[in-house]
């Protein structure tokens, strides 16, 4: 897989550049953890996906119904809706390495 990715870096980069990243951050009220996650996510996106991303923050306190629909357990949770497949990362994203791995952004480094 890795080798395959490396062998076609232009295509991959093309896909990444071509499509818009749609991310959703689930938080619970404006807790420090939630704020930290938002800051980290924004920083990450600015570094790797500048201009190609859109972040939607969902506060479960306002709409708890969504927790069930989107199968949310942990807070904060980042869901990558686009590009497919859907990927989920939980936590404040303080571990940048793991966050990149979770979002599958390492290839773009």
């Amino acid at each position: 897989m890795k080798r395959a990715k490396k062998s076609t870096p232009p295509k991959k980069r093309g896909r990444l550049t071509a499509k818009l990243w749609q991310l959703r951050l689930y938080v619970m009220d404006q807790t420090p953890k939630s704020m930290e996650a938002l800051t980290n996510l924004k920083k990450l996106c600015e570094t790797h996906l500048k201009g190609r991303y859109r972040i939607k923050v969902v506060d479960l306190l306002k709409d708890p119904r969504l927790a069930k629909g989107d199968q949310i357990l942990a807070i904060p949770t980042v869901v990558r809706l686009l590009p497919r497949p859907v990927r989920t990362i939980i936590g404040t994203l303080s571990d940048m390495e793991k966050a990149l791995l979770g979002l599958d952004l390492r290839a773009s480094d």
Partner: protein
Amino acid sequence: MKTKGKRSTPKRVPLPKCRTGIRGLDEITGGGLPLGRPTLVCGGAGCGKTLLATEFLVRGATLYHEAGVLMSFEETEAELTANVASLGFDLASLTKHKMLVIDYVHIESGDVQESGDYDLEGLFVRLNFAIDSVGAKRVVLDSLEALFSGLRNEAVLRAELRRLFRWLKDKGVTAIITAERGRDHLTRHGLEEYVSDCVILLDHRVNDQIATRHMRVVKYRGALHGTNEFPFLIGHDGLSVQPITSLSLNHRVSSDRIATGIPRLDAMLGGRGFFRGSSILLTGTPGTGKTIVAANFAHAACHRGERVLFFSFEESPHQIVRNMNSIGLDLEPLVKRKLLRFHSARPSLYGLEMHLSTMFKEIQAFEPQVVIMDPITSLMNAGTESEGKGMVTRLIDYLKARQITSLFTSLTQGGHVLATSEAAMSSLMDSWLLLQDFEGNGERNRVLYVLKARGMAHSNQIREFLISDKGIDLVDAYIGTSGVLTGSARAAQTAREKAEVLAGQQEAARRKRELERARVALERQISALRSEHEASAEELRRIDEQVGTRTRMLKTERTELGRLRQADATLADGARDGARDGARDGDGNGASDGSHEGRARR
């Protein structure tokens, strides 16, 4: 309103409880699970954790009108609904009527990347939303341990679980949390550490190819509970911990007596038979007539118009009817009149719990006054010794609570030595009859005696038990210096005794005749003597007369001579002498001495 009422009587009800509605569980927990607190239900795979939890919610909704939330981490709504539909639980309908919310939490290990700190607020939100949407009082989390496979940060997870249980308590819901049984601990991930109020352990064991489920309340803070392991069943209508009335011994008793169908046996039992509603044990070696006594008892009960349920574990109904016909007991019409019902099943057909459940169902359906188990020992062999005893205890409790008289036959192998299981079982029985074989004189005879009969005067005698084509009878066995004699030995002994008595009588008659004869002889002798005596008296008189006559003649002659000689003086003297002699002759019989004297003087 409700909580207000409970608060007003805090001293009387130390720990408010939440009735589960599951048969038997409320009894062993003394009224249900701790109200408003989480309860941990743990056990191995397939032991009924999910079912117990689901039934808790279903019963809550249907019996107590309390809504519930089922948060499932393993099965989807559709799967759950389908699984319990066979037990008659309609989850879809309950969901529609807002009595139940099923929330399936999808966790896939390795699917989620973790980066940095997090908490499980999402779970809390979901749960909170589900609870509030129906106003749930009951919550089930099945099974929380799935979280451990989904989330890698165990430190966070444990902290969050602790918070979750705290939160559930604060929320005031009664919760059941299921968990898989661990090797060293109660649960694989040590959940018991967080749930400290009530822990129930479920178990599924196989003994001799027969599987039995068990339930045990490991812990119940602040409440009395049965600590024993209780067998439970998953039947057609849910889970049931079979009647746990054994915790209490307070059934009402009757002083009504019922006949056994064998008059002599009634006589041995104070003349009136057994108490109604008592439990009777009939033990005996093979072929001593246990089934016959049982059938007689059934026959007598049916003739009083009572219903009898006959559980047979060795013979088929037809076989019993045919065999009893041979001793003149016609059971067929009783079966036709629906007074007598047979239920035959091989003991190895299924486990003890299933047997017990089947028996209870039969009893409930037929409502008999008398229940016969023939033989209970072969049923007890279907499980371990303790299981068997437990079953009998529960059975007796069940029957006693309903005032049903029960007769258990028990097969013993040894002669006099009682098996330990038998001795253990006997303590549960009110009356105990023993049937035994006596061998000797080249024959085998049956005897019966009453080993115990609680609360009634009973005979201590051994009776010989006779079976003929006219039925059964009890006769007095001969007890002599050489022990108990039965059969032909008894008959011989009786004949010997009879002969002895006869001989004695004859001897007496002979002696009587002899004495009579001697007496008659004596009498004859006496009369001979008397006649002799009379003869001699006669002789005496005659002599006296002769002497008198002669004297008179002599006097006459003398007087004649005197007259002839003319001597006047001697004439007067001679006349006086003659008068004296006449007086003496008058009392000659009465005083012979006088006459002798008189004679001697002369």
